[in-house]
């Protein structure tokens, strides 16, 4: 590798994933797609976090980021499960899976 170490490659990949995730969160309307975008984004952050633990090829990696990533994964999983449950119930009631575009109460105070 011409001067680029593994940690940097992981961090850059993480940055790309974060970008894709943010794009998906902003652009997509379907809640499930937005939720997947959220997960892509969090995977990118965890990858980046893991990359910060790299201390060169000779030294063992810093274990703290790994411990924190595991906690983060659990949190992301719990959040995903909760939103999927909300979405399922919402789809059962309304038959839709996207939030209505107009903000309720913003322009129409009724």
């Amino acid at each position, binding site marked *: 590798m011409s001067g680029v170490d593994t940690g940097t490659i992981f961090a850059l990949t993480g940055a790309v994933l*974060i970008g894709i*995730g943010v794009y998906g*969160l902003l652009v997509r309307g379907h*809640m499930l797609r*937005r939720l997947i975008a*959220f997960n892509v*984004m*969090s995977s990118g*952050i965890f990858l*980046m*976090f893991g990359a*910060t633990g790299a201390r060169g090829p000779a030294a063992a990696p*810093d274990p*703290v*980021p790994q411990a*924190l990533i595991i*906690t*983060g994964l659990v*949190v992301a999983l*719990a*959040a995903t499960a*909760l*939103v999927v449950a*909300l*979405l399922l*119930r*919402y789809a059962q*009631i*309304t038959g839709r899976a996207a*939030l*209505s575009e107009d*903000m*309720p*109460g*913003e322009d129409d*105070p*009724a």
Partner: protein
Amino acid sequence: MIAMAPVFCIIVPLAAAFASVVRPLPRPLVGLAILVVLGLTGMTVAEVWQQGAHRIPVGGWQAPLGIALVVDGLSGALLATTALVMTAVLLAALPEFADRDRETRKGWAFWPLAFLVWAALNAAFLSGDLFNIYVSLEFLTLATLALVSLEETAEALEAAMRYALFALFGSLAYLLGVVLLYAAHGTLDIALLSQADLQGTNSIVAAALITTGLAAKTALFPFHAWLPPAHAGAPAPASAMLSGLVPKAPFFVLIRFWFDVAPDLPGEAALQFIGTLGAAAIVYGSVLAMRQTQLKRLVAYSTVAQLGYLFLIFPLAGGDGLSQVWSAGAWTGATFHAVSHALAKAAMFLAAGLVVHAAGHDRVSAMNGLTQSMPMTAFAFGLASVTIMGLPPSGGFVAKYLLLTAAFSSGQFIWAAVIVAGGVLAAGYVFRPLSRTFFHGHVQTVAVPRRQQAVPLTLAALALLLGIVSSAPYAFLQTGRPIAAEEGLE
């Protein structure tokens, strides 16, 4: 034991939450749990009062390996506020959610979620570590999301999902900022980070991400859109928690970050920008509150406006201002506002909940003739409005007075104009429901027992009391401030 009281402030509500998942707690046990947490909070506050700010290395492990809890005046004050508001909320929820004869889905779910909110708030206020704060805030978000969706209507579910999008995006932005800080400094402990030299692009990007994430969670304009439907759509006791307490946790973390971790980092432009967003929230939230036809929506938009005041702390006390004489006044003014708004807004939502229950609908006209049928609730709503408008002698007045004097003595007259205008606008939106209480002929058909009406009245009275005996909480809030200063309240 007393030294470990803060740890149990997190453990006891958490245990109560798990216990009530297994089997709904009978009323005496709910009361016992409330009393124990109140006592523990009292012990924590007394400890800060006597010994000043201190750190508790949990399990005896010192940072950077261990995760410390930190108690100072601000966290003590917010713990105490949380305890008072949660006690009121749980008492107010007993008739609605703890009916022994008919166990409902809502009634079953409310108690564990409410205790989880209490535990998560206490954890956020006590954490001395940026990652621990992340976990506490996520905990809080998940519990509040479930509370928002408690009604299980399409509107409530939509409000919850909209809230989820903002809150989850906010958490990830915050987490990314934390990752960048860890990469540069190798620690997440707030005390250790404050000794590190936070300069350069990495720190600025990290600070921007952390600020954006926390602002989205605090519903700062323009991230406010999720708040009114979420807060207005929940059952009234849940709304009181959501509006009064929950946004204070990410705001508290913002203060920790900008005043403890990186006091020298923000430039003047960034501080003015955040202040401008706060001012926009005050004006925009107030104008929309005036236009609402539903009572709970009106109260929820008032929260958007009132949260805006909190962010005036950054232009008035942040950055270079930290070393100025007015900084203590501005800092305490904003934190005082966080406390008095929590009490007053919880009182307002609980009162509104009783009115909606008694009138059978949520339109502002539900307030018609309230002084005849439910004078205690009408008085509670009125007293809470006094604090929201910032009239003397309420806690809201002291907060806005401190912010105002700081704005004048720092020569930043624009913020003074915003604070005054915000007070006038607040009068505009609270007088609309308030004037209806004096109409002839009341519309409240369901009788509400007096002891239920006493709960919001007590909270509103506490918000007022905060202004009458303001010197003790003023001094307490200063405990452990990075730069101690005693001027500002003359």
